[in-house]
């Protein structure tokens, strides 16, 4: 198996990684790039814990092979903090009590981030739909939706 070299933008910084092609993006980010906020839950696209943004779009990184992100811009939770300040969504998740065990949180926040980047003042239905690919076993979702509402200034 020939190794492949992948160049992409990770949290606003250009990186180049040499790796085996039979790696998924979730493994590449966790093992080669120290982005351990990216969680693996179901490994089959159902739970959304492994969600990252590729060019601003949420995708499940357990369903992508490493080589597919060549040239793309990837955002993980590690990249949300700007100049030592938490993103509005991060503080609203804390304030609304939307985090319990925290396993779903990185994926949830990123799906919400993608929504707010496209649609700064979403309706409740739009929020629910945007988060419909992220499962949470703890919170019952209400506080998560509230957190997104708060961040949107609704």
């Amino acid at each position, binding site marked *: 198996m020939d190794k492949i070299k992948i160049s992409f933008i990770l949290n606003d910084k250009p990186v180049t990684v040499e790796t085996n092609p039979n790696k*998924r993006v979730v493994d590449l980010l966790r093992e080669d790039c120290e982005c351990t906020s990216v969680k693996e839950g179901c490994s089959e696209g159902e739970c959304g814990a492994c969600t990252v943004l590729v060019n601003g779009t949420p995708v499940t990184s357990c369903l992508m092979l490493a080589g597919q992100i060549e040239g793309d811009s990837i955002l993980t939770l590690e990249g949300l903090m700007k100049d030592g300040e938490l993103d509005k969504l991060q503080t609203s998740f804390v304030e609304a009590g939307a985090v319990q065990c925290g396993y779903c949180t990185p994926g949830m926040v990123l799906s919400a981030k993608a929504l707010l980047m496209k649609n700064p003042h979403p309706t409740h239905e739009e929020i629910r739909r945007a988060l419909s690919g992220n499962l949470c076993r703890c919170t019952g979702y209400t506080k998560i939706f509230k957190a997104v509402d708060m961040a949107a200034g609704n």
Partner: protein
Amino acid sequence: MKAFNFYTPKTLTEALDLLNQYKGRATVIAGGTDVVIELTERQRDTDCVININKLNELRYCKVEDGKVKIGALTTFTELENDPYIRENVKGLHSCAVHVGSPQIRNLGTIGGNVVNCSVAGDSPTTFMALDATVVLQSKAGKREMKLTDFYANCKKTQIADDELMTEIYFDAPAKGIATATMKLGKRKALVIVVVGLAVLVEKDDAGNISRAQVVIGGVSPKPARLPKVEEYLVGKPVSKATFAPCADMLSDAVREMIPTRASMPYKKEGVKGVSDKTFGRILADFGLQEGGR
């Protein structure tokens, strides 16, 4: 995951050269939502993976020469957001909206859905109701085939080892055509279809049905047209009363298609509601009555 080499061709020609070179020993990856699971679970062995996801030339949705042409790499999200599809091909719009989750719709492509055509695939049912044609391309050239022929063999599709699906197209719905789809599943996000229905109805100036294309999915291995229902509809007025008996006809069809399957009793009841809703949407698309989502 087993070892393989990985290629990301930059042009269609380059991709077709690779496929030709590796005949039968290569796996194509588009969005990856079906194939990555097969690779991780070692259901699939391959010498190399050809990543076609950067072939932006296969990412389009356009109307040309009276046809709606959709490039194989178009994602469900792109289809959902296409204003033409939303307005004029409501059945296809609704099909895209109800696939998987946002993440799956962002990754999953039309080509992957049509070529993979699992029992649970949603777009094949809809495309068959639109009487769509697939375009297949290899180094040797291009060929086209109606979706019904593409799926004629219930075990596999007609795509050859060295071919890529590049496009699917269908006649741009003229005035007087309504389309609708609906699937019954178990949960709002990520529903795996229990039974799906896709319908195209054309009415003449007098308000009578001049053409009907009715396709059921999720029952047999490949979606199936239902000529009996289609024949019943032709010549009748577009009305709630005309569509009402379709529920029972579809229920009978399910019973005939899978008489011994454990899920038959559920599917044959479920399809009745699906029928009422789908034809309700047809009426709504004709502006005759509220149809709901």
